[in-house]
């Protein structure tokens, strides 16, 4: 009889997976534009709303989005936000940071980004912001080309102007 050993409780078995992503026509156009520092949206043919990034189909109406691309401003409004103090290994930002949902001028959908050059005590709904781009030689096919958004100094947007985007 061998001596009883401690039970084996937990084993680590790492698995790795790299995904390959086929962008498709619409997203490819968006990515090629952002590589050149341009933000391209596209209109839904049913209600005319501008989706950013441009995408192949409208999630609400289930129809192809095929119209001409719409170039958007790199300014917008913070429609809502949270201040994050929780670390995540997938996120390369110093804590705490303000994760903001920005409605770009001319767009009808919001995007997630991070706020910079602003104390987290000052961030608020309705705050006007503008993109701060990375140096041109660092641009890739990624929204990371925008380092962060910073306050633009314009007066806040009224709640009514963006409340339907929360």
């Amino acid at each position: 009889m061998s001596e009883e050993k401690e039970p084996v409780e937990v084993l680590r078995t790492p698995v790795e997976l790299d995904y390959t992503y086929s962008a498709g026509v619409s997203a490819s156009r968006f990515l090629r534009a952002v590589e050149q520092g341009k933000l391209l949206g596209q209109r839904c043919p049913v209600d005319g709303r501008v989706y950013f990034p441009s995408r192949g189909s409208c999630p609400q109406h289930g129809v192809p989005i095929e119209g001409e691309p719409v170039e958007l401003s790199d300014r917008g409004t913070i429609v809502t936000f949270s201040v994050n103090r929780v670390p995540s290994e997938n996120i390369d930002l110093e804590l705490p940071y303000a994760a903001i949902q920005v409605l770009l001028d001319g767009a009808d959908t919001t995007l997630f980004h991070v706020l910079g050059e602003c104390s987290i005590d000052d961030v608020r709904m309705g705050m006007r912001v503008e993109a701060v781009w990375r140096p041109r030689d660092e641009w890739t096919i990624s929204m990371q080309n925008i380092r962060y958004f910073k306050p633009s100094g314009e007066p806040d947007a009224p709640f009514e102007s963006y409340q339907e985007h929360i």
Partner: protein
Amino acid sequence: MAELCGIVGIGQTKHDSKRIDVSMAGLLREAAERALEDAELTWRDIDAVVIGKAPDLFEGVMMPELFLADALGGAYKPMLRVHTAGSVGGSTGIVAASLIQAGIHDRVLVAAFEKQSESNAMWALSIPMPFSVAVVAGAGGFFAPLVRGYMRRSGAPEDTGIRVAVKDRENALKNPYAHLHMEDISFDLVASSPMLWDPIRYLETCPSSDGACAMVLSSESLAAKAPTRPAWVHSTAMRSEPTMFSGRDQVMPQGILDNAEALYKKAGITNPRKEIDCAEMYVPFSWFEPMWCEGMLFAEPNEGWKMTYEGATAMDGDLPINMSGGVLSSNPIGASGLLRFAEAALQVRGQAGDHQVEGAKKALGHAYGGGSQYFSTWIVGSEKP
């Protein structure tokens, strides 16, 4: 006319931060055997097995219907897996009930689980996407901006969420299966806990739990032989919607409003606040209690917080919510929806022990998932529909 579905057996594990005393299979067995015992049945009496779990990346287990078939007595029987993100426990229960209601099977075992200790949900919920910049950390990172939106539009007092958190943790003290038993829970303790995802405080969030839940569902004729009075399924509903579209109301999605309307219509309920005796709802962050009180039409838009504030949702209120302690006290994600459904059934069977609502005849079980885009609900009653 559909067959009636009765709930004749209910089981769950003790939920805890680490159940390393059991494997995933062992965890499920613990819940399933309790459900069988409650029904005074054996594995042989089960015709089919339906299993639900959280998204695959959470635990690295992609085919639970294969991996866990033997442990759940699924060999040579129909076995299937359901997947609707965080609402999965609820939709798993609904799929199982449908198999009875459609007359396909007479007794179905439904089981759902999660071992968060074997997973990294924060990582799985923060996967970088090719179109966007990774800033959303975990579920809290996604839902905190929506909570802020609700606070702004409703004008709810800032301590509404604190009150929900205290109430649910107090209820959990009466539930021996709950993960969190915080004897020292108080308003000040929650209020002074750190902001994790401002405006959500640490003690306004759910814990990470290991746990499982199982139920035995039965056709009307076999339910008549059950040793304990069955709970009867009066109505079920599921709805989904895209995570994102222009003008989407993320705070109060159309999906939950449509779900509530369909659910009550099927159950013949015209005044849910009055006709439902208690509700167990998926509230992973405290502010979702007032939000889903509005979503499930218990309160007018922007007035759900008044129910919390006036004590209506407390154990002695007119519509107790989350008698078990809710998701805020136990969150094995894959099982959390089924636990809500099970608590509703326990209540109308009079089996809820110290957290029993006296004389509960109709109860709601509710689950939601994804970016507030999947909704699963059922109403169960002590009487046949």
